[in-house]
């Protein structure tokens, strides 16, 4: 009850509030006013609520309260609580049904309201949490904003500082420059001062020297002498000559002669160098022409006239030059011609080489683009292929060698026949190998089948036994119980027995017949080969050679054993069968089922199918 109260209380209060809101205009009953007052005042005193509610309607004010309620309810759109009076005078009766309906509706409303309230509360909660979240976000963003603002301020500060620094540095640089300027000035002034002093000193020194010279030399120092036994002849044997204007002129002449000689020598050297360089140029030109002319034919045909004319010009020039052989003429025109033509050709060559380079690079690029991935694979494939080929070739060579040796070992009676045989041998060997593998596989299959078959046979035997016993018992019963339907039953039985008895064998026969055709057709070829092989290789009757024959034989033997419609045997087969009879005989006593091993998979399949039947 308390729970209910706690739930309903706010509802009630809300309702009462609503009521108060809605009824604010309407005339209010004193009790309601009272109650409202009470409600408002007594919210903290929830204990008394109940008593007050009970006090809403008392013995005395039933009518009033009913009418009040009616009024209230009608304002809310509920049907009146009173029965519809036939006349206005008559006092209206309280309609209990309506009251109850109203109550019920109110309750429903109440519940709805509760639900809505709940929803609203949850919504409110949600919104509250959303609000919180948003507030958090807001706070965070605010913080971020703050930090970024702070950062910005810091950066601004740093920028300012750096600018300050920069200004300072600029100032320093300026100062330094000034300093340098000053120092340079100082140095210059010092240098001038130094030079000046030096000059002064030197002058003094010179004066002193002069004075000393006068003192020393003018004294007519007797000591300054040369004491010589006798004068010796000049190294060149000539006599010394007097100094005259003539000698001066001669000296000048000689000097100029020397200089001239030197210049001539140098000129000669330069001429030689020039000639050599010219030769090189000419040669280069010739080579260029020879290099360019065949290549340029195509572009010339492509109607690119300019290059064509240039070349023709060039050729003409070359012709002229060679004709006139103006090696020794170093005049301007020739030089110009030569250099111009060389330049032209060089340009052509350069463009050509560039074009080629472009092409090459393009090709290179394309190659890279297209075949970078594939080429490797191709390469690998190719190598694999080649390796395989190499292997094959090696094998071939080996076999050839072997055969050759064998042939040499076995005295060849007839060259041509042996050669022919040799020709066949390889092929045969290959084929035999293939057959051998095929036979091996078949043998394996047969073995599996045999196993299955034996199992199936055993099961079949058991089943048959059980079936016969059943049949016996059933027949017995039939005989014992039934006498009237004898005829019919016996027929049924006969049919059944016929079916059950012959079914296996018929199937077997059918299958074997169909099967027999195939192995025969295969074996028709192989024994020939084998016989040939055995003939050609009498020295090496290896087991590998025999194995296929054996399997083949065993097949044949089984076929023979199973043969219901025996096939006519080819003449060569007969002989072979005779020679290999042992094998078939040897394989026969293994088990009766072994005979069936020659049959193909279909046997077992049929058996399997049958296994499913019972």
């Amino acid at each position: 009850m308390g729970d209910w109260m706690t739930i309903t209380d706010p509802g009630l209060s809300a309702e009462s509030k609503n009521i108060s809101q809605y009824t604010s205009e309407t005339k209010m009953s004193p009790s309601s006013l009272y109650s409202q007052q009470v409600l408002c005042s007594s919210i903290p005193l929830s204990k008394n609520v109940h008593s007050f509610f009970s006090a809403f309607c008392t013995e005395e004010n039933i009518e009033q309260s009913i009418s009040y309620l009616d009024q209230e309810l009608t304002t809310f759109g509920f049907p009146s609580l009173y029965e519809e009076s036939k006349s206005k005078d008559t006092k209206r009766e309280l309609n209990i049904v309506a009251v109850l309906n109203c109550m019920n509706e109110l309750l429903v409303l109440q519940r709805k309201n509760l639900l809505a309230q709940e929803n609203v509360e949850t919504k409110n909660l949600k919104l509250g949490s959303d609000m919180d979240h948003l507030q958090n976000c807001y706070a965070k963003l605010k913080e971020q904003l703050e930090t970024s603002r702070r950062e910005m301020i810091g950066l601004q500060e740093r920028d300012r500082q750096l600018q300050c620094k920069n200004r300072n540095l600029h100032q320093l640089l300026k100062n330094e420059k000034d300093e340098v300027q000053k120092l340079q000035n100082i140095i210059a002034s010092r240098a001038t001062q130094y030079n000046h002093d030096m000059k002064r000193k030197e002058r003094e020194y010179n004066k002193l020297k002069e004075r000393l010279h006068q003192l020393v030399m003018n004294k007519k120092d007797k000591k300054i002498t040369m004491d010589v036994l006798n004068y010796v002849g000049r190294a060149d044997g000539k006599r010394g000559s007097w100094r005259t204007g003539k000698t001066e002129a001669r000296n000048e002449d000689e000097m100029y002669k020397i200089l001239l000689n030197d210049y001539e020598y140098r000129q000669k050297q330069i001429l030689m160098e020039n000639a050599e360089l010219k030769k090189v140029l000419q040669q280069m030109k010739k080579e260029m022409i020879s290099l360019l002319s065949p290549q340029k034919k195509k572009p010339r045909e492509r109607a690119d006239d300019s290059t064509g004319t240039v070349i023709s010009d060039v050729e003409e020039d070359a012709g002229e030059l060679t004709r006139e052989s103006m090696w020794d003429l170093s005049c301007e025109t020739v030089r110009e011609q030569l250099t111009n033509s060389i330049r032209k050709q060089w340009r052509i060559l350069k463009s050509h080489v560039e074009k080629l380079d472009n092409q090459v690079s393009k090709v290179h690029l394309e190659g890279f683009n297209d075949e970078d991935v594939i080429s490797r694979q191709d390469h690998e494939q190719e190598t694999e292929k080649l390796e395989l080929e190499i292997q094959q070739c090696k094998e071939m060579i080996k076999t050839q060698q072997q055969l050759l040796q064998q042939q040499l070992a076995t005295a060849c009676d007839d060259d041509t026949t042996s050669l022919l045989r040799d020709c066949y041998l390889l092929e045969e060997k290959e084929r035999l190998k293939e057959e051998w593998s095929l036979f091996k596989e078949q043998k394996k299959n047969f073995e599996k089948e045999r196993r299955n078959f034996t199992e199936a046979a055993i099961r079949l035997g058991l089943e048959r036994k059980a079936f016969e016993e059943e049949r016996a018992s059933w027949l017995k019963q039939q005989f014992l119980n039934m006498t009237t339907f004898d005829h019919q039953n016996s027929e049924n039985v006969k049919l059944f027995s016929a079916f059950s008895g012959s079914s296996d064998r018929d199937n077997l026969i059918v299958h074997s017949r169909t099967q027999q055709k195939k192995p025969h057709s295969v074996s028709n070829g192989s024994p020939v080969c084998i016989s040939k092989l055995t003939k050609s290789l009498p020295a090496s009757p290896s087991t590998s050679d025999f194995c296929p024959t054996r399997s083949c034989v065993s097949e044949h033997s089984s076929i023979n054993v199973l043969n219901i419609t025996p096939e006519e045997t080819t003449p060569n087969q007969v002989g072979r069968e005779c020679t290999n009879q042992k094998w078939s005989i040897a394989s026969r006593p293994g088990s009766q089922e072994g005979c069936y091993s020659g049959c193909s998979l279909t046997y077992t399949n049929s058996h399997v199918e049958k296994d499913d039947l019972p």
Partner: protein
Amino acid sequence: MNFSEAFKLSSLLCRFSPDGKYLASCVQYRLVVRDVSTLQIRQLYTCLDQIQHIEWSADSLFILCAMYRRGLVQVWSLEQPEWHCKIDEGSAGLVASCWSPDGRHILNTTEFHLRITVWSLCTKSVSYIKYPKACQQGVTFTRDGRYMALAERRDCKDYVSIFVCSDWQLLRHFDTDTQDLAGIEWAPNGCVLAVWDTCLEYKILLYSLDGRLLSAYCAYEWSLGIKSVAWSPSSQFLAVGSYDGKVRLLNHVTWKMITEFGHPAAINNPKIVVYKEAEKGPPLGLGRLSFPPPLPLAAPLSASESKYEIASVPVSLQTLKPATDRANPRMGVGMLAFSADSYFLATRNDNVPNTVWVWDIQKLRLFVVLEQLAPVRSFLWDPQQPRLAICTGGSKVTFRCFLCAGIQVGTPWPSSVRITSVFVSWTPKRGSTQLWNNGTAMRRPWWNPQQGLRVPGLGRTRFPWELSGCHVPAQ
């Protein structure tokens, strides 16, 4: 390598005659002339004082002996032992004396470079040349001996005078556009004169024989400039070594730079072969150690030998950190020498003192690097073959020869002498070939126990020291 017995020698004075037949050496005031082939004394002359400088005349007929302290020059004739000549410079003093190329004139420079006196042996005539400049290389003769160029200084300006050697007539006189001329050098063909400025300014000027300025070259400014200059024997190239550690090659047509060779301390190019000298540790058994240890001079030749090893590239060479705050810092290319066929150029960068760089001039690239155990004191090309003799010195001196012809063959001839310095000279043409044909290990190297060394083309050094050992290889 074989050695002759040691001769007494003073002041590093020992010269082969230009024809390679004789060897003149000084012991105090005595001049000894030996026959090179037999090493027998041929002549013995006695001078008035201790000899400070000797020089053969170009025709190998006369020997000049200078006694600077007394301002005296004495000349001796090889053909006429009784012939004598004495030149007294008197109170003017004497600082340098040399032969003119004809071998008949002697040029004496007085003290303070007041003048140059040209004494003739043929006539009584004396010529005076005033105002010679005191510089690194102020006098140079053309190879044919016709002309002499002389650096002068007048009125704080540099001048160059060209004289005709036959009669000492002034041919040309021109001022050079230099701050402080440092040196002049004729091209081997005698037509071009290279003039370079002091190290404070990088400037090299090229003058024709007739005094025209052909070209001027300046690689950079504001730094120490040229340190060494060398003409190739073909006159085709002029190699200029500078303080920035580079050698610049100028061509003879446009006088512009063809290429420059840097001298990095690390070699990364795998094409370059780097030979490293390595000790070939002598078998040093414990039993052979004696106490007290033998005197260093007692066994000068038993010192450890060395050999060349090919170092695997990259190689970093030993470098010196030059003191840049002092004058004449040890940096830059201080030594340059072309081989006789002009195919190779050997250089030394002074802050990589242990290394000789050999450049291939045909391909204009580095050819071989030779790193020695001790600093390289000097090197000299064989006048006939592309062979290089290198002297290294510390407490001991090794001499080695490096052959560059065709396949370069590192041919070390290790030999150590307990001396502090070395002087290398190849015997001139004739004698050397003979010796070579005789099958001796090599042409005679010459070493001298004195400080100061003669670097080709850098003028003479005076050797104020006393005698010590001198080894001449025996045959």
